[in-house]
């Protein structure tokens, strides 16, 4: 058994370990990419959903809401909002903002037209059908 | 040298034994206990003799042996749990 643990041994472990585990990460990523089609609901990625995602991004929704638990924690989780509230509620809600209720958290009005509202709803429908391993724990998100 | 060869043969025998038990179609405790014991002995040989940790000062030997005992013990516990 070796007693002297030298700096160059430590260096080799660093470089070797980094390469080793990065290759492992790439291997697992490769497997993930081949498994995703069964889980990520890509068959429903319509043009409208893609437009909806673009609206989602350019209105910085993630700055207040979470989607699949990622984002800001200021406003409700939206991955399952389609199931929680339904399409009509979502559209009416977005058109009704801001509520102006004193002291309450406010959401801006993004002045989306009917087509954009439909795109948004379609995007949220698509996300609600992704297999997220039963997350969130309940409908409240 | 000869000792190492003997230990090697011992490892092979224990492997064959475990394999034989499984091939004989045995299951449950009949296979669990002897196989885990064989694994314990095999692990002990590798740790003490091959890694030559026997007689080494400091905690290394006991940490590695402790790892083996802990893992095998908890495996035994988990498998017993599954049977009941």
């Amino acid at each position: 058994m070796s007693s002297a643990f030298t700096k160059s041994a430590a260096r080799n472990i660093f470089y070797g370990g980094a390469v080793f585990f990065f290759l492992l990460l790439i291997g697992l990523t490769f497997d993930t990419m081949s498994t995703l089609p069964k889980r990520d609901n890509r068959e429903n990625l319509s043009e409208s959903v893609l437009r909806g995602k673009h609206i989602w991004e350019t209105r910085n929704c993630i700055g207040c809401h979470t989607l699949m638990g990622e984002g800001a924690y200021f406003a409700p989780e939206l991955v399952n909002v389609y199931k929680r509230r339904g399409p009509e509620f979502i559209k009416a809600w977005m058109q009704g903002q801001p509520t102006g209720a004193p002291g309450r958290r406010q959401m801006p009005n993004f002045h989306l037209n009917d087509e954009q509202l439909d795109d948004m709803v379609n995007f949220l429908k698509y996300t609600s059908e992704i297999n997220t391993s039963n997350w969130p724990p309940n409908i409240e998100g | 040298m000869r000792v190492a060869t003997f230990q090697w043969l011992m490892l092979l025998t224990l492997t064959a034994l475990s394999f034989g038990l499984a091939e004989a179609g045995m299951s449950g405790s009949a296979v669990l206990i002897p196989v885990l014991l064989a694994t314990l002995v095999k692990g002990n040989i590798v740790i003490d003799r091959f890694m030559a940790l026997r007689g080494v000062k400091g905690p290394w030997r006991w940490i590695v042996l402790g790892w083996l005992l802990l893992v095998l013990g908890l495996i035994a516990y988990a498998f017993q749990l599954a049977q009941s």
Partner: protein
Amino acid sequence: MKYQSQMVAKPYFIAAIGLFLGQILFGLIMGLQYVVGDFLFPEIPFNVARMVHTNLLIVWLLFGFMGAAYYLIPEESERELHSPKLAMVMFWIFLAAGVMTILGYLFVPYATLAEMTGNNLLATMGREFLEQPLPTKVGIVVVALAMLYNLSMTVLRGRKTAINLVMLVGLWGLAIFFLFSFYNPGNIVKDKYFWWWVVHLWVEGVWELIMGAMLAFVLIKVTGVDREVIEKWLYVIIAMALITGLIGTGHHYYWIGAPEYWQWWGSVFSALEPIPFFMMTVFAFNMVNRRRREHPNKAAVLWALGTGVMAFLGAGVWGFLHTLAPVNFYTHGSQITAAHGHMAFYGAYVMVVITMISYTMPLMRGRAANSPLAQVVEMWSFWLMTVAMVFITLFLTAAGILQIWLQRISDQPMSFMAAQDQVALFYWLREGAGVIFLIGLLLYIGSFFIKGKAATAD
């Protein structure tokens, strides 16, 4: 300070501290919006304040890393920086890009900003932490590449030590993984999967290399312990960081549509992620205890020790709390995440940058250490900020536990907003702790203006 060109670090550090102040002010605005929802609405909606808060953090930490690199790489390489002029040009470009971006966030509606800056050509905006307009992202790449060229040339022609090599590898990794921010597929699962290749592989990967190199550099200087010993520790720590952290990425893949085996891989490896942080704590204390000299800069030593402890608490302990998949199922995307994020960023990255500033600034201002009074004020700021951050974390954790209980575990789950109303008290307490943090920061800035005779080793 041994080389004239190390002076380019100074503007970087000054900019870093200035932006840090901005970050904290916006943090306080957000904290208040949590309890007084319509505060500053519609002038600064929460999403804008948050974008400014997080982006300022990223930008000022990058300023700090760059400044640190420009300071330590010439000293380690034992030669002048390849091109101090290039470093200064990059400073102004980066500062201009950073300030313009923040002003853009504040004064232009985000959708308009996206349209103006070519987001329709290559959509990269609107994803958490990567909200920057396309020109800013390109600017970051340009600045990073120019810096890497400058530093690599310096190292290539100079002495190669573990510290400057690790720093360089870390910075190269930072630049390379940032390229994933330009990949934004329509498929939200793939989008999120590779988004983490920027975010996780930065903060739980290559940034730890940068952090380790900075800490090791300061520890060599202030303790006088043998370089061989410190560099060995450095390699072991960062090796553990990558060994656990690379597959640890899996702890972000539990609930975003990725295969379920990530729950196993992510849990096992990220459960080990505290190990490198714990080693960092042991490392810092061990080296200070074995010191061969009394460095007059006591404040820098305090920051270095504080980094070790707080990084372990914030990144290690608070990370471990919710990293196992069965726990994370309930805690994911709650205030627990916010609690962890605050203490981890402060303990690991904010403190290591301040450690570096605290050690180098007096040297760049022509003295080994600041006056005793200035140091006392700085140490007060250390304790105020650190204790305030501990309380922010504790209050957010309490808020998170209550939130999870009401909204996710209880038989009659409350809606999100109903649960938020129930935890408002903790948000008020957090805001109070935030004010203390601001006072600490102002004290810290004030300590730079305290004159007096330089302290000497006693």
